[in-house]
């Protein structure tokens, strides 16, 4: 199989098959909710949908989102931007992706989902050797991502971990009803504005299993406490009430300059579509 076909296969797999850790977190959440409640009905529908999409190889959500590729830098020639775009165009023709790319000035559709800057392609040195990783992130969840600047007087949030916690919980409450809960948070503490959004989003590549927890003790504690506290707010699946508002929280930090202290939250819906493909190198 050539590289374009392999990448089109990765796109289909990512769009139609939810990662195991996310599906198992959803199943666990369903068991926690009271039978017959809105929360239980919603999670039951979600899980039926996950199974059906995998069986059919169909997009599990019709918003096939922004495609972000994270590609091992040593694959820069084999998996070039031109090759990736060919695969995206092919996947679109086959109905693995919605025609989902609009020119922001003219309003016209790029019917093959390819344009200057679409899909988003990063060549990085931190993915496994020979690996291509892909995340599909829908617009409903992207609209719920936020950036805070500490201190924040409306939240009473200062420049410390307690202040960071207030920002993250505020983002959870503001996303209710809109972000397709139960969601997953990728968070970056610090950094400059642009890098922080990138880093926050990259945290969504980490597993929800214990293997994906932060190796830093302070951040690991914060990941756990934010998850517990968010789920105590009663927001629930799709904001209809219940015990499951988040499936997981993944936090990283970056250094900052003395004048800036940003807290950046990338909100991901339950349809956290990430996939990977490995080439021999």
């Amino acid at each position, binding site marked *: 199989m050539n590289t374009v076909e392999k990448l089109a296969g990765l796109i289909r797999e990512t769009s139609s098959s939810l990662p195991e850790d996310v599906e198992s977190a959803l199943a666990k959440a369903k068991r926690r909710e009271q039978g017959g409640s809105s929360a239980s009905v919603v999670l039951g*529908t979600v899980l039926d949908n996950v199974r059906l999409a995998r069986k059919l190889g169909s997009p599990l959500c019709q918003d096939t989102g922004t495609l972000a590729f994270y590609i091992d830098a040593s694959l820069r020639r084999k998996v070039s931007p031109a090759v990736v775009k060919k695969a995206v165009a092919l996947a679109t023709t086959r109905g693995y992706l919605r025609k989902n790319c609009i020119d922001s000035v003219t309003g016209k559709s790029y019917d093959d989902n390819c344009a200057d800057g679409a899909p988003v392609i990063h060549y990085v040195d931190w993915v496994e050797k020979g690996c291509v990783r892909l995340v599909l992130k829908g617009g409903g969840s992207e609209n719920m991502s936020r950036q805070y600047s500490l201190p924040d007087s409306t939240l009473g949030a200062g420049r410390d971990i307690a202040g960071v916690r207030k920002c993250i*919980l505020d983002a959870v409450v503001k996303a209710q*009803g809109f972000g397709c809960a139960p969601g997953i948070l990728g968070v970056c503490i610090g950094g400059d504005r642009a890098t922080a959004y990138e880093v926050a989003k990259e945290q969504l590549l980490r597993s929800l299993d214990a293997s994906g927890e932060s190796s830093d003790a302070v951040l690991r504690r914060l990941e756990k406490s934010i998850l517990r506290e968010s789920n105590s707010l009663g927001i629930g699946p799709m904001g209809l009430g219940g015990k499951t508002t988040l499936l997981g929280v993944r936090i990283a930090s970056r250094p900052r300059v003395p004048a800036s202290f940003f807290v950046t939250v990338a909100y991901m819906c339950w349809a956290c579509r990430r996939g990977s493909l490995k080439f021999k190198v």
Partner: protein
Amino acid sequence: MKELTYPFDERQIRALKAGDAVEISGLVHTGRDKFHKFFADGGKIAVDFRDGALYHCGPVCVKAGDGWRVVSAGPTTSVRENPYEPKFIASSGVRIIIGKGGMDAATLAAMKKHGCVYVQAVGGAGALYAASVKRVAGVDLFEEFGAAEACWHFEVEGFRGVVAMDAHGNSLFDKVASASDALLREIL
């Protein structure tokens, strides 16, 4: 689980309460951003929405022979249609709005006045909702708006959702939002 079948009966719709789980069958029309603006600007199509259902949805559909196959068809966020929906409800006689995230107080008031409910579909469940579409009865505004924004006419069976805004002025979203706000203030 309450079953609702097109044409939707006003008395049955008015009897629903926020929190009721429902299954919808029969004709459902899709319409999202461009559709709502089109109507607000005075546009017209030869579709009767009276006692019908409007679904905030931009589906993935692929050509299959002479017809269409629906691949993925979950709800899109409804708040963007807030400025248009009260008028649309009043003028069209629609009984069910399906979407996600709920709508504003003006829409809730229009629902109470005209006998309409808001059904929350499960965001992201595109494949499952596509499977509940048994037939594509037709499509309007396709050339003008493209597949994702067109007005599709779906024949659905067992389309699942939860009544989140009823015709008595109750919104599940408002209830959950004020409770969670109070809880958040407590733990902050």
